[in-house]
């Protein structure tokens, strides 16, 4: 049972922290909307267990000029891949 977590607020909120407290090692995180600012944050990404796959929504990264500064750990995905990720995982938990 693996789970896709979406996170849509910036590192200034405690949203990612909350998510990480209850995430499982084979889950994945997709940063969307203001959440994509995490994609360029070493502190944010280091807090995520290595087994957890990390994605960022490409459209939101483009809008916010964070696609080029995103760290290697993050795989940018577009909305159609977001849909695929939802089917590949057993459920989706939205953090907003």
């Amino acid at each position: 049972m693996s789970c896709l977590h979406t996170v849509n607020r910036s590192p200034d909120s405690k949203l990612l922290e909350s998510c990480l407290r209850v995430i499982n090692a084979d889950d994945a995180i997709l940063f969307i909307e203001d959440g994509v600012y995490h994609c360029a944050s070493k502190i944010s990404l280091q807090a995520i267990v290595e087994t957890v796959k990390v994605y960022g929504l490409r459209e939101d990264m483009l809008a916010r000029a964070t696609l080029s500064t995103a760290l290697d750990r993050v795989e940018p995905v577009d909305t159609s891949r977001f849909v695929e990720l939802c089917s590949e995982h057993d459920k989706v938990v939205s953090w907003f």
Partner: protein
Amino acid sequence: MTENANTAKPAKSRITFISRSAPYGNNRANLCLDMALASAVFEQDVNYVFLDDGVYQLLKGQDAAAIQSKTLGNALETLALYGIENVYADQQSLKKRGINRAELLPGMQLIDSDAVAKLIESADTVFNL
């Protein structure tokens, strides 16, 4: 629309609600409660978890008359009447806010983060707000 209820799919799903917002400041706590009550009315398998600022909803002695609202704490006390028995408060969230068990509404089970993770993992659907 009622025809939907008569298809072959299971009539029961396991739904975990995570209520993460303080009461009154915004309506998320109420939305979460409304969804949970509806799930109970339609006889789903409900887990109700209070996490982060959500634990503020559980303080005894709330009185929202002065802000012309309904007192959320009173509604939460009736959860069992609606058949919602699995009501949990996250210990770490309480501790961080300096809230003691004695200050809480009755009927709350204190659990840790790992238990919350399991309630998410075992659910068919998670509502988190």
